[in-house]
């Protein structure tokens, strides 16, 4: 047996143990059941500022803001799979998650401005990113405006955007526990992605 597959869940909801974090937990439970080592970070418990847009990182490749964000990016780079979770507020991801995503600017700068960071295709294939979300509204398009920022985030970090685990219409279902399939689907996708990464590593 090689090293266990490592999975990091990042919960972007300000609301503890709500619909989105519960869906993330189901995914992480499935991953753990399949043998992965699993950790979860709750963004609202971290201390990080939004990106200042100062572009200092375009010259240095490091962020001048010293808080909990850069160590979290170090953790992200140490795992095989990240599950990024946010509810939909006002047709987009939360300010907490967007705040973290914007802080990845220094990594983007290393790739595209300074050109001292490069993820080969094989690295990207071996690192899977999953977006987990819930929305109160029933509209089919309620997640659409979240995807571009999530796509940009996974691209910047060198993770393949592997899958979405999304459930709308929470208001109608009276929350995630009332949804007929979402929690089971999340658990099964957690198991499945760990097996896929195991096969890739083998």
């Amino acid at each position: 047996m090689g090293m266990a597959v490592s999975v990091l869940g990042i919960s972007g909801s300000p609301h503890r143990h709500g619909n989105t974090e519960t869906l993330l937990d189901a995914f992480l439970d499935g991953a753990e059941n399949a043998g992965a080592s699993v950790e979860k970070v709750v963004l609202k418990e971290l201390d990080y500022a939004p990106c200042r847009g100062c572009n200092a990182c375009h010259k240095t490749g490091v962020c001048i803001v010293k808080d909990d964000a850069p160590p979290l990016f170090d953790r992200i780079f140490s795992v095989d799979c990240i599950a990024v979770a946010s509810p939909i507020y006002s047709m987009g991801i939360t300010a907490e998650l967007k705040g973290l995503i914007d802080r990845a600017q220094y990594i983007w700068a290393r790739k595209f401005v300074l050109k001292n960071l490069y993820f080969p295709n094989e690295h990207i294939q071996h690192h899977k990113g999953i977006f987990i979300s819930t929305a109160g509204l029933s509209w089919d398009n309620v997640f659409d405006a979240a995807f571009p920022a999530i796509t940009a985030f996974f691209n910047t970090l060198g993770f393949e955007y592997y899958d979405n685990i999304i459930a709308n219409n929470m208001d109608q279902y009276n929350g995630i526990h009332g949804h007929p399939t979402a929690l089971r689907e999340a658990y099964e996708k957690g198991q499945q992605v760990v097996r896929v990464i195991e096969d890739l590593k083998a």
Partner: protein
Amino acid sequence: MPVKVLAFAGSPRRHGNSETLLDWVLDGMRREPGVEVEKVVLVDADVNPCRGCNACETLNKCVQRDGMDYLHDRIIDADVIILAAPIFCMGICSQAKALIDRFQVFRSRKYVLKLPIVPPERKGKRLGIFLSTAGQNWDHVFEGAVPSVKCFFHVIEVKDKDIHYLMVNGVDEKGAILNHPTARQDAERLAREVITEIRARLAG
């Protein structure tokens, strides 16, 4: 009665491209007689993110005490509301998203409690402007931001057809917008058009 304009500069970078675009619009509006302009710089305005507690669905107010206490009545009173924000990582910057999410109190008032946002005689007499800039020059770079911007305006009784957009891509480094061939004229024209339109609405 003067036309009241309330403008949010949503960028964390002071006097950068999106704020410059906003200043051109506001300068154009100030040149018109009888226009009162208030500009709010979001990074100095102490607006925290929404906590998602849903208390506003019953209380009709937010449980957080911060800069939104000051802004709440101004948002209601304004005839023209402007949001200026840059695109970071294919979405609106997180500072502006925090403001948008704090409009949940208006959403609860309108859709849950079914109470008026503005008095009936002011319905249809509010206009919105979204100003944005992006470093990337892709046409679709603003697509992730617009749905949230629409929410921001809908919940304060600015209808879809009454939202004006000026979104300039391909401007990244500070000051890049100064070299844009049309942005300044477009901003000044937009200022005139919106003030003319709101005057007609208020008179009607």
